[in-house]
């Protein structure tokens, strides 16, 4: 189950970015070709985030579609099940995006405003 190891990485990364403030939202970018399963990450997250600043955070998972560029006519197109260029039918385009797997941003409780109020 590599999603477990991956989810541990996510939690380590966000807790490192916000060691003291509770994390409310974690936005992930998951490429179509990243090999990562959204459901499995959600499944692991509750377990892995227990007793950390990320506990209870909402996971916003933004899928990134795979974008290919034809090697023949250089048309950019979204991945289809044949991996074929919709214009010239050539196969084996270069993958421009869709392999990424990023923690894009987190939302944390805003300390500054609390201070301002106090």
């Amino acid at each position, binding site marked *: *189950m*590599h*999603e*477990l*190891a*991956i989810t541990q*990485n*996510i939690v*380590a*990364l*966000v807790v490192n*970015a*916000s060691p003291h403030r509770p994390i*409310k*939202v974690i936005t*992930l970018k998951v490429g179509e*070709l*990243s*090999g*990562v*399963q959204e459901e*499995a990450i*959600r*499944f692991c997250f*509750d*377990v*892995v985030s*227990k007793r950390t600043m990320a506990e209870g955070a*909402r996971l916003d998972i933004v899928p990134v579609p795979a974008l290919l560029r034809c*090697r023949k006519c250089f048309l950019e197109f979204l991945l289809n*099940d*044949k*991996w*074929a260029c919709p214009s010239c039918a050539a*196969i*084996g385009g270069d*993958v421009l995006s869709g*392999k*990424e*797997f*990023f*923690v*894009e*941003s*987190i*939302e*944390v*409780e*805003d*300390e*500054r*405003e*609390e201070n301002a109020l106090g």
Partner: protein
Amino acid sequence: MCEECGCGLPGPTRIDGKPAADVVSPLIVEPKPSGNLHHEHVHEHTHGDHTHEHPHVHDHDHPHTHTHEHPHGHDHEDETPRQTIQLHQSVFAANDRLAERNRGFFSALGLLVLNVLSSPGSGKTTLVQKTIEKLGQPDRIGVIVGDLETDNDARRLRASGANVVQITTGTLCHLDAEMIARAMGNLNARELDMLFIENVGNLVCPSSFDLGEGVRIAILSVTEGEDKPLKYPPLFHSADVVIISKSDLAVAAEFDRETALLNITRVNPRARVFEVSAKKDQGMDAWCDYLKELRAALGAALHP
């Protein structure tokens, strides 16, 4: 628990039967060689915790996603003020860093490292074993074997005379860069020309983990069907070499060779493809010559 590969939570990783953290490796700088040697406890506790929490997850999982999804986006006002922190960091960054360190170590030694990936039963061990036999000089070859539990594969490979290190991952379905760095502690890298890493049998998980290899090899056996590359694009897309194995069974398995080759090209036009039967010694010469060429090129780069 994992529907994709049937594996569960990571167990304690062991290298040649010892806890991984006890293996001294040239690639791993220990935090501080103090008198207190009980670092591993931290690891074991976390794992223990996971296993315990496990049963709860099912019940919690569903209500959470529902309740959480709605309130957000609407009511920013009545909740605690929030601040957004942009991170834009790769989740694989930690592994990728370690993998690059491995890669630097390997290339400084001119060591050709091959990461072999496939589904269980596609003939990884037989291929590696026969390749070692054909290449000759097995004492110059290292093998790191990743397995969930048994050491059967390692024993088979040791019989070939190669230097074999066994990593048992417990239930974890892939090897990562740190495990490889650890395992190097049990190999004399300077005495090796080639290192095979026989990854855990799985087409999904290992493809995300760079180990620092020079060449990534995906095996597709003729009994698995021609559409595997389209079903598991992350693996086949990331491979440098695709080996079609058990080619002697192609007719019996009604293997559609043309479609298979086409599907590989669809997903990965730059992959080198070899069709072999390790058992019947078909196509093995071309494959071994290719490995020798790669190794020679590395050596030439080191000693011009």
